């Protein structure tokens, strides 16, 4: 594959008509030019209602009597039903139409790293705004700011249950006999920062859970005086914060109320295990399922040296020769669907809704990752028999609606000279144009990036 096609496919989201010309002779420059905060928030996504607006319309979670709980559940499900399709279509339309596709790939990468899944209905209606408010604004800044924004966003606080975690010795804890919920604390270290082998213990999980207590979402009719701090729709309630010192990873944290979480997150972001973990995930996403160790080391060093400057890490990644070598990656359903829609420049909102549907049919329903670990990022997980057959079915269906396209022109645009002899012959000898287009989409070359 040419360097321009690698830029468009591996780093971007699949080549669009005209994109190779835009990349020209400087694929690295084309990618680096995208690393700009001004590209982070497409207008269609900025136009959607934000977290605070959505939370206004929702009653909330905690301490309600049983029938209020039921009403709440209904309200949340209704909101999710109405908002998730709109958020999903906006996200895919942004990916399909983007002139800065690396930005959209990074958005999806971090959104998956800090997964909030609609599999927990309570969070489903907030995932769109979570990406717009917590992920996108911090794509090009420091990791620690991304970490803070994601961890303390209402969507994450609800998804991983911090919203209902109560310090056992806090005023609310002693009065109502409530206690800790350690879900967020554990996943925060295992999945978001240190990695599972990052050297923490069960005691650290419990201590971090204490540190995080108090951060929740606003309850209905909550008096303003109960709130000590507000951030992006989340609130800090001192009455549920665990008082006293906490010891996390050997360091004592004095009781500092709402600041404790910030300090702990800063410390987690600085640890070498975090640099290594993030570097590994980026290298796996952009280079190979088993990325070259040297590449991981280089990225981790850059991460540490720059204090977690993500733009510096991405730039280093683009500079690595290893990122331009190898067989690349088997496309996930997201990658494959978006690449198809981009190849056809299928840019309308109606098309985007079909892309949402296609992802669902292909086993990767947008915003509904199966667990807090997010969607898998390796070939073995996606190259299952049933999944491949579903892609064959889908490719044929697309071909039927795209019979007017010139298959070889489409091949030049999307995979270029990497098209194998077998694929080329199959496409040229196909009994119909529809089949020829479909064969290109399901060809081994189009299945990879």
């Amino acid at each position, binding site marked *: 594959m040419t360097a321009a096609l690698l830029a468009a496919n591996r780093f971007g989201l699949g080549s669009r008509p005209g994109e190779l010309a835009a990349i020209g002779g400087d694929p690295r420059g084309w990618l680096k030019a995208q690393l700009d905060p001004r590209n982070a928030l497409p207008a269609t996504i900025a136009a959607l209602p934000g977290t605070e607006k959505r939370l206004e319309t929702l009653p909330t979670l905690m301490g309600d009597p049983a029938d209020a709980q039921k009403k709440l559940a209904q309200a949340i499900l209704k909101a999710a039903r109405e908002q998730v399709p709109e958020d999903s279509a906006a996200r895919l339309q942004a990916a399909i139409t983007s002139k800065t596709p690396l930005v959209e790939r990074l958005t999806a990468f971090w959104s998956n790293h800090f997964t909030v899944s609609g599999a927990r209905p309570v969070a489903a209606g907030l995932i769109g705004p979570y990406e717009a408010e917590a992920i996108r604004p911090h794509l090009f800044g420091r990791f620690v700011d991304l970490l803070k924004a994601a961890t303390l966003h209402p969507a994450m606080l609800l998804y991983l249950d911090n919203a209902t975690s109560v310090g056992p010795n806090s005023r609310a804890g002693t009065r109502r006999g409530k*206690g*800790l919920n350690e879900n967020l604390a554990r996943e925060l270290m295992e999945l978001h920062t240190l990695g599972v082998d990052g050297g923490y213990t*069960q005691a650290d999980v419990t201590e971090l859970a204490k540190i995080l207590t108090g951060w929740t979402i606003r309850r209905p009719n909550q008096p303003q005086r109960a709130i000590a701090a507000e951030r992006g729709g989340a609130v800090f309630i001192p009455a549920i914060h665990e008082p006293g010192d906490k010891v996390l990873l050997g360091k004592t944290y004095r009781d500092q109320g709402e600041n404790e979480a910030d300090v702990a997150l800063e410390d987690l972001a600085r640890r070498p295990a975090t640099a290594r973990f993030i570097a590994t995930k980026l290298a796996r996403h952009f280079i190979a399922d088993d990325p070259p160790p040297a590449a991981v080391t280089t990225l981790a060093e850059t991460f540490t040296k720059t204090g977690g400057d993500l733009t510096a890490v991405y730039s280093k990644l683009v500079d690595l020769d290893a990122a331009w070598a190898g067989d690349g990656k088997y496309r996930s359903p997201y990658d494959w669907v978006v690449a198809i829609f981009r190849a056809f420049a299928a840019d309308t909102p109606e098309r985007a809704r079909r892309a949402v549907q296609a992802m669902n049919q292909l086993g990767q329903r947008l915003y509904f990752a199966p667990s807090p670990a997010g969607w898998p990022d390796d070939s073995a997980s996606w190259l*299952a028999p*049933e999944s491949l*057959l579903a892609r064959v*079915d889908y490719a044929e269906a697309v071909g039927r609606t795209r019979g007017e396209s010139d298959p070889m022109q489409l091949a030049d645009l999307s995979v270029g000279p990497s098209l194998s002899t077998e694929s080329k012959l199959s496409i040229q000898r196909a009994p119909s144009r529809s089949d020829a287009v479909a064969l290109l989409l399901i060809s081994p070359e189009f299945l990879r990036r």
Partner: protein
Amino acid sequence: MLNRRQMLSLTGSLAVMGTLPARLALADVPTDARFVLAIQRGAMDGLHAVPPYADPGYKALRGSLALGDTGGADSVLDLDGKFGLHPTLTELKSWYDKGELLVVHAVATPYRERSHFDGQDLLENGTTQPHAGNSGWLNRAIGLMGGGDRRLGLALGPEVPLALRGNTAVASWAPEKLPAAAPDFVNLVQAMYAKQPALQAVLRQAVDADQMAAAAVGSNAGMGALRPGNAARILAESGGRLLAQPNGPRIAVLELQGWDTHTNQNGRMAQALTQMNDALAALKAALGPIWAKTVVLTATEFGRTARPNGSNGTDHGTATALFLGGGAVEGKRVVTNWPGLDSAQLYQNRDLAPTTDFRSVAKAVLHAHLGLPQDALDRVVFPGSAGAKPLTDLVRV
């Protein structure tokens, strides 16, 4: 849609590829026994599914999660005067009463940390380390069964879980969400993959499974899309029909969701257990007379905290309970070396303490039910597990 790819296997693809194994007409049937592994992802709370309701420490320990024993609608379904089933598990209770269900309690894999993802990896890879290999213990077991080209293993759902991944080819099945491509088109794709052995093999497996499914399950029309509420039942019913085929698969993996009950556990467990109960009922019904030759084993990565957390839920723990059901099970028993519920008896004063190794149950089934030799179980299927002796007399031989 019915049998739409059956034609493919008889016509085009043989000519195109020339190497397809004979599929449905298979002579070498290694065993008549059927085995279903039901993986409960998210960590099932064994103290909630199978409450030790007569333990003197139970009510105080479990607080808002304790179930009643007064015989009312919310009461446990008594098993043996000591343990009961959650009231939603009516189907399992009927199995128990017929001698077709046993419970193993206070059971855990060798994993002693509390990460879902590592815990599941270890549960499925069959070693004592997470990520210690890319194959699953059930795949290795199938490899030892000597089925030749035949796909004895079946993943129910679009993805193949790690337990079934490995060197031995398995099939997967899920209801279609897309209109099927024409057989001719699938042939063109297979021809295009002529020099891509990996893609070719995967596609061939898919076509095989699809063909078998068409024969066994029939049209999927009307089945509808899988949703969280019905997926397990649909997959279990279809899996039962596929397993019931004389030349069908022998071993299937079903996934059951909804166990990670950090909040509102009473409601969420009732839902997850109802879905499991309904799915297992559908499986038994679909198996028909083959039920007599079947063993179903449930498995989850670990248990949950013995005490409730601050959100009427539980956090990640250690030991849990498992179900062993089926016509071939020597049931009507709760098998346990009960560790007790006092603070000092809990693991790290927090979780139900593990007293039975999960591998001791799995190895017992693989040995007594599927006929795998002990030595291979100790070394290949669960490497280095000679210390985890198989339990005896779990299965009618």
